[in-house]
């Protein structure tokens, strides 16, 4: 466009008087007032964008996107006992949800049984407690596992929770080949952000590689890992850090699997991703588009994958829990709608929308129904699903996509200099970067450089909470522990001991751990017994507290 016209506009812009406000993105990125063709420089749409379903997949992983298949509406849910959670799943499926997503409680996430000393007060509080196969049976009673796909947010003990899931399918006569779903199984982001680990990184990485090899042969439709930026963002990272750290974790998994002798085309098509959709609408869309492009290029060029399915960055999106406010909780519905729309315009394969009450408690039935309806409005009323990558070609979106990609590349070089992801974790690199960003954001709120409606501006002082909250009854813990004791009394304890001993031998001898884990699950070995058996061989991990 004409330089002269641009200069004229710039003069008029400078002279028009600007509000005294912060015009950076949510992540603190400086932004121009306007983006124009010249900001894109030598922009080659064939190389940078391609067509949907074509390399480098900037515009989407499928040729038809939501005209072919609507994204999967998958609400993360779990609370109390397996029976209570089962009732919530049936409610959600009845309301039109199209996939399941299991939220486990904290003890389960740490591989501990409900009667462990550290579990006191936490059983069933932030998710469902699963101690043995018997709980897995209760959790999925009456749910057609061969027709509904199931995502499980579990990491450190992912392999033995998955073994229980498989053992349950087996008991119900459902072949492993018919099972569809995703295991989060992303331990690297645990060390970086969510902090739920059992062993040091190397044994955890080996378990992940074992699971990838097992599923390639036995559970071919299962996504073996969901490489997650969500928790990195929730811990306070910027959009660029979320993008870079997540994809760097992905490269680390690829390199471990290759080093273990796996063929890239056997496991890469089953890798999936999980990103956050935060409040900065355009930056989030650009981040998701950049993720696809960076991943495709790395898979094709750096790792030499030949099958286009190995190049795809397919991902789940969840709206940002950390953007929700305890104050005026109803307005969280609006935040979530904007974030969800960003996820959709960014081309997600599945989506979770947070409920308005999640800064206060686990979602009530009413709140989760509104959250699901929000997705249905975007899908079926707004028109957003009619056209593929509708913001593609926007000067602003394309410039942001380029900039985020470049920022991620700078982080990849830095991580390489530190000796790779595991070394960078051990040095506290990611942890410090994230804490710095979280602190800067909190200070920006404190100084009112950034606003959070109802929190540091537009507040309703003294307003009482007007929405009903879900409460987890204290009886849940007692009931769950009683059920666990009963299960242990009724099983064949000799068979459990033999199973755990066989598991320890396989761990020490370097054999694939999925077959012995499956045997332990079939015999009703508990989650904690299995964790303890493996800890004897692998040892425990302790983090040096960085801040």
């Amino acid at each position, binding site marked *: 466009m004409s330089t002269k016209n641009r200069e004229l506009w710039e003069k008029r812009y400078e002279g028009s008087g600007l509000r005294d406000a912060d015009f950076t993105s949510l992540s603190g990125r400086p932004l121009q007032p306007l983006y124009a063709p010249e900001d894109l420089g030598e922009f080659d749409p064939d190389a940078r964008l391609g067509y949907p379903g074509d390399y480098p997949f900037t515009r989407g992983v499928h040729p038809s996107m939501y005209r072919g298949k609507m994204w999967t509406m998958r609400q993360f849910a779990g609370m109390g006992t397996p029976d209570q959670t089962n009732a919530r799943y049936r409610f959600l499926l009845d309301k039109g949800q199209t996939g399941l997503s299991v939220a486990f409680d904290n003890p389960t996430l740490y591989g501990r049984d409900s009667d462990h000393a*550290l579990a006191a*007060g936490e059983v069933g509080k932030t998710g469902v407690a699963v101690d043995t196969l018997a709980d897995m049976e209760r959790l999925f009673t009456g749910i057609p596992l061969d027709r509904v796909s199931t995502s499980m947010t579990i990491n450190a003990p992912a392999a033995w929770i998955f073994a229980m899931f498989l053992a349950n399918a087996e008991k119900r006569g459902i072949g492993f080949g018919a099972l569809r779903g995703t295991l989060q199984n992303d331990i690297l982001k645990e060390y970086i952000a969510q*902090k739920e680990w059992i062993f040091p990184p190397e044994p955890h990485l080996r378990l992940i590689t074992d699971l990838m090899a097992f599923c390639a042969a036995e559970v071919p439709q299962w996504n073996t890992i969901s490489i997650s930026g969500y928790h990195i963002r929730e811990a306070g990272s910027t959009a660029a850090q979320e993008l870079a750290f997540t994809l760097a974790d992905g490269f680390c998994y690829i390199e471990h699997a290759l080093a273990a002798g796996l063929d890239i085309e056997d496991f890469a098509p089953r890798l999936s991703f999980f990103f956050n959709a935060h409040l900065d609408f355009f930056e989030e869309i650009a981040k998701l588009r950049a993720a696809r492009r960076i991943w495709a290029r790395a898979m094709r060029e750096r790792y030499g994958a030949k099958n286009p399915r190995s190049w795809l960055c397919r991902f789940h999106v969840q709206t940002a829990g*950390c953007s929700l406010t305890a104050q005026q909780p109803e307005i969280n519905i609006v935040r979530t709608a904007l974030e969800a729309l960003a996820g959709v315009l960014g081309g997600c394969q599945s989506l979770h929308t947070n409920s308005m009450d999640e800064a206060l408690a686990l979602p009530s039935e009413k709140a989760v129904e509104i959250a699901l309806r929000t997705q249905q409005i975007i899908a079926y009323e707004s028109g957003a699903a009619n056209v593929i990558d509708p913001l593609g070609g926007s000067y602003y979106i394309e410039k942001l996509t380029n900039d985020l990609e470049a920022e991620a590349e700078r982080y990849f070089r830095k991580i390489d200099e530190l000796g790779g992801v595991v070394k960078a974790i051990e040095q506290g690199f990611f942890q410090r970067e994230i804490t710095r960003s979280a*602190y800067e954001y*909190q200070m920006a709120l404190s100084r009112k450089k950034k606003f959070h409606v109802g929190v540091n501006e537009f507040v309703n002082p003294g307003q009482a909470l007007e929405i009903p909250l879900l409460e987890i009854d204290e009886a849940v813990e007692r009931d769950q522990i009683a059920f666990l004791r009963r299960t242990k009394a009724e099983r064949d304890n000799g068979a459990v001991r033999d199973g755990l001993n066989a598991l320890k031998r396989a761990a020490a001898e370097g054999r694939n751990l999925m077959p012995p884990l499956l045997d332990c699950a079939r015999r009703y070995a508990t989650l904690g017994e299995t964790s303890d058996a493996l800890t004897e061989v692998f040892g425990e991990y302790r983090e040096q507290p960085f801040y």
Partner: protein
Amino acid sequence: MAERRIKVIIAKPGLDGHDRGAKVVARALVEAGMEVVYLGLQQTPEAIVRAAVEEDADVIGLSILSGAHMSNFRRVRELMETAGLGDRLLTGGGIIPTKDQERLKEMGVAKVFGPGDDLMEIVEYIRLNARRASG
């Protein structure tokens, strides 16, 4: 005698990895000139109070987003009394419903903070309410 720096123990009890708030507050307190000992994750109430005794801390801050706040605050408060730290400030933050905040107050826990509370307000509260060494 010169006033000594306020010393704060920050810890995450139980099985809860949500450490964003704990770390941001730790950093803000350091920036405000206080001394912070961040114990990190998976701390038992016993280990927290032991550290407070060893460090002769003025303040203990617990960060709990797991829903296990009642049992953890109660236990830490009891152990503080036993250890002769009854005059020190026990505060904290996390996802803590208003009605539980009232119950915490009754058991001797000071103000607890939640999502959206201003960082500078937290710093000021600790500055004003920390037990000061009388010299």
